[in-house]
């Protein structure tokens, strides 16, 4: 049954990220899961089919053949997005929400810059670590300036799939760049550590920023961070500060933790949860624009 108040979307890539996205889309007031596309028969394809979602193993070519699909989430790999999926979606006029580190389109961190990106045809969701830390860096930047921002993302080994493991450099490089482009740090540095402890650890990220203006009172910086945390919590309910903001000389540090919503992987996989929750937040904003414009009806 077609819902006239929802925009039809596809997910390309039925792995950990894609499967978790599907659960979140099925809960959305603005998005309707119209296709799960992969390139081989897989557990993810079977799972989607089990929910009654149309599936295909012809990848993006199946997505572009369906004229009702307006938005596609790409949860494949940087190479596949850049070379195959992004050009095909663009040609078909389908908006791409890119969860790979390809960054064909502009970086999107909803609490910081979603406003300007609602009409773009391709947006990139940076990385899980970027989604968790860039808001904090930007919150410091807007009141005191950020000369240098460094983040350490610790994730449970179990939540890092083969894609993440084969692309460690893409994670650090994309996150470092986005700390600069969206976080507005003059220099960004990102570090990722996998921790195999059992039971698995919640995703934890440390943020350290060297401020530019040392005359700004710590209280002002702290309040800016706390306001930003509330913004992020609107779309990532498990987002919180584990260690409140501290100041040592010109260094502000804080530790954030993300507990997932337990949609596909257990709650320790906050890394999966935050990038997907951000992608959904962005896609819903785009969908509302489309619905306003009369598209999709």
């Amino acid at each position, binding site marked *: 049954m077609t819902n006239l108040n929802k925009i039809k979307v596809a997910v390309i890539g039925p792995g950990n990220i894609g499967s978790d996205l599907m659960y979140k889309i099925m809960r959305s007031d603005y998005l309707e899961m119209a296709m799960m596309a992969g390139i081989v028969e897989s557990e993810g394809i079977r799972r989607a089919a089990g929910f009654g979602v149309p599936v295909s193993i012809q990848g993006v070519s199946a997505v572009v053949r369906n004229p009702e699909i307006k938005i596609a989430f790409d949860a494949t790999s940087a190479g596949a997005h850049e070379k195959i999926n992004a050009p095909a979606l663009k040609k078909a006029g389908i908006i791409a929400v890119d969860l790979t580190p390809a960054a064909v389109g502009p970086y999107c961190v909803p609490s910081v810059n979603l406003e300007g990106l609602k009409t773009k045809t391709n947006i990139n969701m940076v990385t899980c670590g970027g989604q968790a830390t860039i808001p904090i860096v930007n919150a410091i930047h807007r009141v005191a300036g950020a000369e240098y921002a*460094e983040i*350490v993302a610790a994730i449970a080994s179990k939540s890092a799939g083969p894609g993440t493991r084969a692309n*460690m*450099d893409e994670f*650090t*490089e994309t996150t470092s760049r986005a700390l600069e482009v969206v976080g507005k740090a003059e220099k960004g540095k990102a570090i*990722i550590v996998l921790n*195999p402890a059992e039971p698995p650890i919640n995703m934890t990220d440390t943020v350290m920023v060297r401020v530019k203006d040392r005359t700004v009172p710590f209280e002002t910086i702290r309040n800016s961070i706390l306001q930003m945390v509330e913004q992020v919590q609107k779309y990532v309910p498990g987002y919180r500060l584990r*260690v409140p903001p501290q100041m040592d000389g010109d260094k502000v*540090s804080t530790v954030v933790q993300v507990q997932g919503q337990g949609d596909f992987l257990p709650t320790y996989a906050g890394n999966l949860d935050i990038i997907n929750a951000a992608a959904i937040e962005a896609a819903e904003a785009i969908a509302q624009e489309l619905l306003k414009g009369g598209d999709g009806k």
Partner: protein
Amino acid sequence: MKLQIVDATLRDGSHAVRHSFTAGQAREIAGRLDGCNVPIIEVSHGDGLGGSSYTYGFSKEDPFSLIAAAAGAVKQAKISVLLLPGIGTIADLSRAKDCGASIVRVATHVTEADISAQHIEATKSMGLMAVGFLMMVHMLDPDGIAEQAKKMESYGADYINLADSAGALLPEQVTERIQAVRAAVKIPVGFHAHNNLSLAVANSLAAIDAGAGYIDATLRGLGAGAGNTQIEVLAGVLQRKGIETGLDFYGLIDASEQAVAPIMLRPQIIDNGSLMLGYAGVYSSFLLHVYNAAEKYHLEPRDILVEVGKRKMVGGQEDLILDVAYSLKKAQQA
């Protein structure tokens, strides 16, 4: 092949001097080691390429200029660098090559060998020697370690190095780990000790007896925690044992006394903190960060170390020492 001694004074030793090595010191130390016939000299920030940071400590001088200085001072020795995927990148690796490095040791936590594929393959494609370096090997059983080593071999590693990063292993545990990996792979196996339980030289001997072909050591034992296997001691012990290394024993003693002792910030001893690292199985590089946090929060370093051990924090998680100290303080105040 003759037993190869890998000197890591200018890498693991970097922790002990809080990453304050200068290009002049690198030139002096590498030149002396080269003259003493040490075949491989490792130069990097203690946490590898890209390690200079708030989290691990900023390098006083550009780490790449230290690599170039060491490379310019050697005649026969090869220069090695350490790289932890997630901290250093292939771009760093390529710069290290331009500075004169010809060996890359790609280090991962003992259970996470598959994150090294990208970097080992890149090393090989640049025509350099690649080493698969497994850290914290006390945390996994011998068969499990052998499985991880096989992965690194399949990516193209030229040898596998097992690191007892917490200095927690006893000699018989070293023996069974080296034996298991040797049985599983066709490439040589090496060992990297820490002296937290005063076993670095004994564990290195156990590794050699079990067939290790490469052993890490440093002048004065300079390194994280209680330091590493002391190279001049090892050279003397191996001479007494009749194992040929080609090392110049007296030359190393002089290098230790004249080039390293004067720049040390603290004596390389087993203080209480270092002992607790080995006892609780904690990554040796955490020690100085724990001392900093203990001072800031007015806590006992050993309480922080035990909690870090309980949380099974792995190498690279220095950032979370702040989190541990903060939670302990809050619990105390509650």
